[in-house]
């Protein structure tokens, strides 16, 4: 097996044009992903968390090569994915797959389960029908469904079962990396636990790496090895999951953690009051993007953007308060 990380993202930027249309010229740009760098090792679960509009989904789509970056590099197993030929890219695509949030929208209602789960394979090589069925049956078994389900349509399944079908489809080509974009957010608690456990089992069995995108801190802390917190397109904190909620270093992470309602009536949450809403990414504030809402902001925060620096082992923070000290 090759050395080095499976996925390496450096200084990644994605800008979208604003407005414009068939004839009108765009009148500005919005930076959805801004100078993001991280890497994911083999067998690791790397989480991207943040609130709506922080750029986590765009980042996920960039990693998969579904949209082209405006700047920076994405290397998969040492290869820059945007320097590859069409053919090389096709071969690379089978090594990375995606699981979507909405198990209703992500399955074609007119296709049978057998066709759905083997479709990625079909895109790569033609399989005789009997072999295809065999592959599909094996995949369903891996995700806890029955061979009898092969001839059913998506509407015959519950949300949790549909998500299992989506996972089987992702597994079909035996990928090394799976980007899971809010895979359990649409599911009920009891079903969510089933899918999280299934994802953990499959990771073991197939030595998968996950990029797990979610807004739910409790789920992310449970499933991940490392967690990156995003705010307005940038990673503002990156920490091992074990120390994430106990010693957050960025005031925004601290506010996120403290805002989670604990399922324990004896431990009342005492949310840290942060002002207002996330500012518009169209016109981000100067300096640290969080400073208008930050209770600790001082002069430097308004003028200079802090960079992500390692404050303790493996724990990176982009905050002027944290040149070596905690909150």
């Amino acid at each position, binding site marked *: 097996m090759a050395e080095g990380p499976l996925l390496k993202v450096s200084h990644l930027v994605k800008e979208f044009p604003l407005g414009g249309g068939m004839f009108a010229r765009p009148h500005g740009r919005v930076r959805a992903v801004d100078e993001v760098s991280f890497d994911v090792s083999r067998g690791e679960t790397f989480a991207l968390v943040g*609130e*709506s509009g922080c750029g986590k989904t765009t980042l996920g789509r960039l990693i998969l090569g579904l949209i082209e970056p405006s700047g920076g590099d994405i290397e998969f197993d040492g290869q820059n994915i945007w320097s590859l030929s069409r053919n090389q890219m096709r071969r690379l695509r089978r090594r990375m797959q995606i699981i979507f949030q909405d198990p209703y929208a992500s399955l074609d209602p007119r296709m049978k389960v057998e066709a759905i789960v083997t479709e990625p394979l079909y895109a790569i090589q033609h399989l005789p029908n009997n072999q295809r069925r065999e592959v599909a049956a094996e995949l369903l078994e891996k995700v806890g469904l029955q061979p009898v389900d092969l001839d059913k349509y998506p509407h015959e399944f*519950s*949300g*949790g*079962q549909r998500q299992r079908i989506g996972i089987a489809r992702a597994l079909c080509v035996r990928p090394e990396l799976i980007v899971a974009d809010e895979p359990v957010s649409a599911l*009920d*608690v*009891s*079903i*969510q*636990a*089933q899918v*999280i*456990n299934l994802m*953990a089992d499959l990771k073991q069995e197939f030595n998968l790496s996950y990029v797990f995108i979610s*807004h739910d*801190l*409790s*789920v992310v*802390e*449970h*499933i991940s090895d490392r967690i990156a917190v995003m705010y307005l397109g940038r990673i503002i904190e990156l920490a091992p*999951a*074990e120390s*994430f*909620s*106990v010693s957050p270093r960025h005031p925004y992470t601290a*506010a*996120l*953690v*403290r*805002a*989670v*309602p*604990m*399922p*324990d*009536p*004896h431990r*009342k*949450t005492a*949310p840290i*009051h*942060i002002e*207002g*809403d*996330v500012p518009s990414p169209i016109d981000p504030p100067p300096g640290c993007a969080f400073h208008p809402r930050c209770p600790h902001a001082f002069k430097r925060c308004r003028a200079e953007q802090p960079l992500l620096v390692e404050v303790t082992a493996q724990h990176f923070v982009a905050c002027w308060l944290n040149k070596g000290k905690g909150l």
Partner: protein
Amino acid sequence: MNDKLLDIKELRVNFHLPEGTARAVDGISFDLAPGETLGLVGESGCGKSVTALSILSLIPSPPGRIASGSIQFENQNLLGLNSEKLRRIRGRDISMIFQEPMTSLNPVLPIGRQVAEPLIVHKGYSKSDALAEAAGWLERVKIPAARKRLGDYPHQLSGGMRQRVMIAMAMICRPKMLIADEPTTALDVTIQAQILALMLELKAELNTSLLLITHDLGVVAQIATRVLVMYAGQIVEEGCIADIFDQPFHPYTQGLLKAMPRLGDRLGGGATRLNEIPGTVPPMTERIIGCKFADRCSYAFETCREQQPELFQIRPGQHARCWLKHHPERRRRNG
């Protein structure tokens, strides 16, 4: 006069669908005291929203129909009222806020007018008086520069701000009871914390009763004083929050609490497995003779499949719909 503001008895709501009759709410009874916060929790399709909608006769009909039961509000049966009388209660004595504020607000009316409307309709305010009062309420729900924003349209506001507008609109007539159906589910966690704090603040100030419907046990633990856990159209457990969270009795309640990942669990160790509740909720159209949870329950025995359990008292104030109450030895054997 009794001390209950709301008293629901044996409510049954059916939906007549092509595939059969769905018993969305299957005989539930509960009450709400003035000023109380009651949490109604359960997973999708358990009937919690249908229960809330029935209180104000908002069930889409057809296919829905309230088959039986009574809903007493201040000693009058809401189910017996004509639409004229119901209109006088909605928004004045009982108001409701929903999950998605964008679909509950009128997109073509300025927010000031929408917030003012209940005062004009119910209290006979003049338009200008109502608008002045609405401005005060928008300030009260902490909308920045409220007076300047009376003419704003819903699309100009963020999700959190829209929910604040909904709250202002719901509270402006100082209702005796507020029904909040997943009020923070569509919001980010930092905004959720702000909205919950705001709801609690106003509720305490106006002594409003709150019926909070949610799937999030965390929100319930933080806000409610009493909880009803619903499963497949029935209440399976009820009690004060301390009892439900510290000593849940029903295997479903226990399973739910153990299925949740909790922040801080990773401290001093790797990931543990989450507790799964196997299987899925039975379809609402299915006739189940015994306990509706039996198929997913690890303790289920013959009685569970043959006879429906009642809500047995576990301790004062806590009830659970489970045969284990009378067969505690079954829990030990399988547990």
